[in-house]
């Protein structure tokens, strides 16, 4: 067999990656009539067949608990994780970074939390507001029409609140709150913290032929009936129906190929099943491999014309990688004990959440950190009981065994709540990735080396999370049972742990300080675009997926328009 196969077909567009960004690019461009080839490094996944929907834990290996093969548990739709055999990455000494990769059709959209929050006007111009980080080259108004279109296509429930910097959207009606959520809403009312319907990409009404939710709290298993958003169900099914999309899985792209004219001519990938290199050619290349994987691909695409890697004349590729600040508190609420039995599953996520409420205080410099966070919370009787349930019961029951213990456990069940902060990280010079020239993966591709540091703003934010969540627990009449103090840096997460890594190939107005122009088009290479989280200039507390979808739609429309006018 030859070592190199050159695919005879030429495509209008080659899309690398099939998650939120790649899926949206395929949806828009295939519908615009472009012949698209999608390359996915992972395996085929079709939730209609592969989801573990409605299965019980006692029928599953280890009752569904996490294992090295299933780091998020047996039921999560995720294929992949923070460690993938044969695909390592390295960290600079003293730098703590976890890099999560989904290796499956649809990427992380199969298992994600479905939290769909728009970035607000402040979130695009953070430097102008507080002098830290950088401004985006676009504003909220540039993206607002795309947020509208995305929400109408994928279906997002929510409510109209008119809150500062938390723009309302085109919402489906939200599901009513769970019992424990009402209790917390009341406590938040006493503290002046808004607690409003959450905004999740889950259908509460039929939409575009998809049935509404059936309320079994299992979105992370991916929905068999496509009642929540995933790229395969909502974007790739209609894109395939146009006849313009070809999907190849197990295709690990190693390099973007560049012609003598300096334009991208195609990509080279390893067919994981045969270990052969394949070259495919296309007129436009869209990278949506996930933020750091896209940076890696560009840095590995070295040529005579681009010795520092493609799209990297600014030296910005790999720079300003960001994650989300997390910190958790757990509480025990006696008022939730001995409640009449009821089904608290609901949708696969929270029905209420707390958006950031301190913009005014921050503009008056009354808080010791500059950016915001929102609060997600869960617990109660939600979800199939998992191993670890009621662990450490001796703390609350004094120990024991026998009928007293059995009765005590019944009483405790459903009375624990956990609070999770999701906060904005300000990009810093010490958080970036580069090629580790000493290490290759099993496909022969040089791997990434990560550098990562939280800044002082982030640590102070984690402290504020701890203090606020403990206040909420107490205001609800509860007892804090798990928290973090200064010796644990207020429980701040490890870099990459939130799986919200963005940045690394940022967009900008100036080709000297950014890799991409305001349409996510490479300054150095006109027919090369980035459609995942890599173009992000900042990482607001709002979970990135909705913004990735809106930005990818805008970028894809721009590509379709330029191709139509033969401008690329």
């Amino acid at each position, binding site marked *: 067999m030859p070592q190199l196969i050159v695919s005879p077909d030429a495509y209008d567009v080659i899309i690398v990656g099939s998650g939120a960004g790649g899926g949206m690019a395929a949806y828009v461009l295939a519908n615009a009539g472009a012949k698209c080839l999608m390359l996915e490094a992972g395996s085929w996944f079709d939730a209609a067949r592969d989801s573990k929907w409605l299965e019980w*834990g*006692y029928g599953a290996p280890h009752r569904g608990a996490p294992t090295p093969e299933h780091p998020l548990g047996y039921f999560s739709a995720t294929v992949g994780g923070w460690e993938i055999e044969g695909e390592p990455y390295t960290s600079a000494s003293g730098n703590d970074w976890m890099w999560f990769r989904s290796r499956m059709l649809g990427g992380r959209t199969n298992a994600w939390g479905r939290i769909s929050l728009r970035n607000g006007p402040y979130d695009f111009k953070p430097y102008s507001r507080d002098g830290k980080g950088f401004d985006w080259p676009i504003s909220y108004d540039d993206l607002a029409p795309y947020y509208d279109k995305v929400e109408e296509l994928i279906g997002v429930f929510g409510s109209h609140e008119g809150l500062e910097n938390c723009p309302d959207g085109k919402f489906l009606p939200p599901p009513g*709150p769970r*019992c424990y959520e009402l209790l917390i809403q009341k406590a938040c009312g006493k503290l002046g913290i808004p607690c409003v319907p959450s905004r999740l990409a889950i259908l509460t009404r039929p939409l575009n032929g998809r049935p509404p939710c059936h309320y079994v709290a299992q979105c992370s298993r991916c929905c068999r009936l496509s009642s929540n958003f995933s790229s395969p169900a909502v974007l790739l099914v209609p894109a395939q129906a146009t006849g313009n999309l070809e999907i190849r899985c197990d295709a690990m792209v190693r390099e973007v190929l560049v012609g003598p004219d300096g334009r991208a001519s195609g990509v080279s990938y390893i067919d994981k099943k045969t270990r052969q290199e394949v070259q495919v050619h296309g007129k436009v290349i869209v990278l949506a491999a996930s933020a750091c994987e896209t940076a890696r691909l560009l840095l590995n695409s070295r040529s005579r014309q681009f010795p520092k890697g493609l799209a990297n004349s600014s030296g910005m590729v790999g720079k300003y990688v960001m994650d989300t600040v997390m910190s958790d508190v757990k509480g025990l609420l006696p008022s939730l004990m001995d409640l009449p039995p*009821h089904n608290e599953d609901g949708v696969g996520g929270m029905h209420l959440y707390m958006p950031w409420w301190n913009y005014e205080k921050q503009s008056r410099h009354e808080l010791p950190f500059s950016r915001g966070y929102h609060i997600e919370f869960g617990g109660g009787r939600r979800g199939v009981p998992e191993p670890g349930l009621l662990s450490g019961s001796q703390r609350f029951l004094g*120990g024991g065994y026998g009928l007293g213990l059995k009765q005590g456990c019944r009483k405790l069940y459903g009375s624990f709540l956990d609070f999770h902060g999701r906060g904005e990280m300000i990009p810093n010079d010490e958080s970036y990735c580069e090629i580790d020239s000493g290490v290759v993966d099993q496909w022969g591709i040089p791997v990434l080396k990560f550098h990562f540091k939280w800044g002082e703003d982030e640590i102070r934010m984690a402290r504020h999370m701890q203090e606020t969540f403990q206040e909420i627990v107490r205001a609800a009449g509860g007892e804090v049972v798990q928290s973090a103090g200064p010796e644990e840096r207020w429980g701040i997460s490890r870099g990459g742990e939130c799986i919200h890594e963005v940045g690394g190939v940022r967009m900008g107005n100036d080709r000297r300080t950014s890799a991409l122009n305001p349409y996510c088009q490479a300054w150095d290479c006109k027919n090369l675009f980035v459609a995942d989280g890599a173009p992000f200039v900042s990482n607001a507390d709002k979970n990135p997926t909705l913004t990735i979808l809106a930005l990818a739609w805008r970028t894809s429309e721009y590509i379709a328009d330029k191709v139509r006018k033969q401008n690329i």
Partner: protein
Amino acid sequence: MEPKKLLSRGAHLPRREILRLMTAIPAGALFSAARSTTATPKELAAELISPEVAASYQPKIFNPHEWKTVHTLSGLIIPADERSESATAAGVPEFIDDWLDLQRGDLLATIRGGLAWLDIECNRLFGTDFIASTAGQQEQILDRIAYPKNAAPEDTSVVAFFNHFRDLVVSGFFTSATGIKDLPYLGNEPQSDWQGCPAPVLAKLGLLAERTKS
């Protein structure tokens, strides 16, 4: 080669067809259909773990004597009552064996060491091992290590063992088919609509007035 097509899932399906699909889910989901009947917990558990299967389980971690001790101890920690059967009958020993096989390390050493201590202590005090001791003797031993605040300092490591073992029994029991019914966890049942927090719960939480006002 025919290009691979994604299934379009629930698209364009009538509600009736969706409900049919819901009941056509394999494996553990069969239980969810059976759960609406009037079967007792014992009968329900029997559907999942038939006696032949339970009897044929080969422990991966424990030797035959430890295996018997784990059965006895699980039953003492969560015994049967009018609401449900014991942890032993609910398959907790099998859960613990499998769990320790997965975790290994310190936890496994703690558990085996603790089981050995039970025998050593019973032999010292009563001249027989733990499972052969009388119910009263077993209680005497457990009462020493099951209440952390009252325990003697020299029993600290055994108290830690018992905390771990209790956690395994509790978690194994309440994630079993029997335990889920016992709690009761009423979810994992597809709903045609979401009803929100039911009135009796609102009333107990003192939120009924506020909810009906709004």
